[in-house]
């Protein structure tokens, strides 16, 4: 292994007075002083969120406005801190999306429990639950910190859908291929 011995010279007179060092330090700080500020004025200015950021978990709708969650409860089972509580419900047979059969009646995520692990997003077969950009949650009571279904859809909004799996299924059924 090659290494270099650093030569340690005794301090020169100028160095022992500290003055040149102090002046160069002051030069550095002065440069900092006139440079633009490095901090954000936080609540007004927000940091850019990188793609793939795991913020607050939310429920999303597909571009047709259908709620994607089919209340399979996989996310409820996988959630390590048991932050998710789902009450499954039926979709009424006269509804347009009746072929989907199930939808959550109530869907609650307790943000005091959630650890932002993203497992719910990973496990969801319907791509219905997404961890999105919201990173700052606050509230005055414990109840406020539980996001109910309405709030979850508000936060989630609509995300593009690559598959339209239920539409395809319905089309296949109508074309006489029930096992699609």
């Amino acid at each position: 292994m090659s290494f270099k011995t650093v030569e340690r010279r005794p301090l020169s007179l100028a160095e022992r007075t500290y003055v040149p060092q102090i002046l160069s330090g002051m030069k550095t700080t002065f440069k900092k002083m006139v440079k633009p500020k490095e901090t954000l004025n936080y609540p007004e200015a927000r940091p850019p969120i990188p793609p793939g950021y795991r913020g607050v978990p939310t429920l999303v709708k597909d571009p047709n406005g259908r709620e994607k969650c089919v209340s399979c409860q996989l996310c409820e089972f996988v959630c390590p801190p048991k932050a998710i509580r789902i009450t499954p419900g039926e979709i009424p047979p006269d509804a347009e999306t009746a072929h989907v059969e199930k939808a959550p009646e109530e869907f609650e995520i307790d943000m005091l429990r959630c650890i932002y692990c993203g497992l719910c997003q990973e496990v969801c077969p319907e791509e219905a639950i997404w961890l999105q950009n919201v990173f700052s949650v606050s509230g005055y009571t414990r109840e406020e910190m539980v996001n109910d279904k309405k709030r979850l859809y508000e936060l989630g909004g609509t995300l593009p859908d690559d598959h339209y799996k239920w539409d395809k299924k319905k089309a296949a059924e109508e074309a006489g291929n029930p096992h699609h």
Partner: protein
Amino acid sequence: MMEFYFELPLWLRLTVQGLAVIAVLFPLAGACSMAERKVSAWIQGRPGPSRAIVPWLAWIPGISLLQKLGVFHFTADGGKMFLKEDVAPGSVNKFYYYLAPLIAVVPALCTVTFVPFGAYWDAATETMKPLVLANVDVSMLAVFAVASLGVYSLILAGWASNSKYPFLGGVRASAQLISYELSMTLSVLPVFLWVNAPGGEGSLSLIHVVNTQAQPGLWGGMWYVFLMPLSAFIFLVALFAETNRQPFDMPESEADLVGGFHTEYGELKWGLFFVAEYAHMFVGSAIFMILFCGGWHPFPWLPLDTLLGWLGGIAPIFLNPVVSGVIAVGIFLAKLIFSIFVFMWVRWTLPRFRYDQVMKLGWQKLLPLSIGNLIFYAVAIAIIERS
């Protein structure tokens, strides 16, 4: 107006003058704490306190600039300090505990009496008359004497708090202040040796020092910082130590002493310590500017008299005593504010010395240096004035 003022009894005039000076100095000392926060923020790349605003003033155009500068934070801080509950820990010696902050403020503000802070054009005698509260012949000595009383407040605070950290802070403060006082006093002696030419009347007056820096000619117009750079340097270093500023803020060093001598203090009592510290800084910088940087004269080789003479040629209003006084005080204040800024700038640049380093620097470096400096200038001045 002027005639009316000069017809008032002397005691009333002096009281008004004194209150006027204090009314300027006290808020300035408070505003310094704000400036300190702002300067530290800028150096660290932050905007600093810039949010507070009085809601019913928010409509005034341009007020957001004041808001950005944190002016309302300063008033809010001050208000908070006045309104806070006055608590004293049960273990302290109540009498001395309350006395200490007062002893800190009183000498700090008293020194101002002896510091000339400007001059005005007296049309009757066609000369500049100094503006000072007490025009005494020993003003330099008086400033040193009264300013060093401030150390008692630190010792008292440390001792009366009846707890370890303040006690250590008080001990350190007294040791440090005494050590650096010597070098400080020795470093100003060459100035007075030079100012008091043999045969003339001896004087320790600060006004005299300012006037001698405003004489005609190459040597006469030279500020003493050019003539005696080493003296100025020693004085400045000692000044940093005397005002307990970084890198010499041993008495407070929060890393090892929590808060130092004011650990047990809160609300207004604590605020008074800080007003005292900043007042010391102001007076110290004023002395530095007077001794070494020409006081209220705007530039070396350009005394204020000459400048006012030129301006008076353009518009006679500049020779009005009030206007010329305001100009002189303005120049002096600008120099002071610059020097306070340097104090803060240094504070946020340098790390703190260790206690033994402070002592070593004071006794083994600065003191011999200032003695050598004194001997050198004594000999040099003797030779120059002999020839």
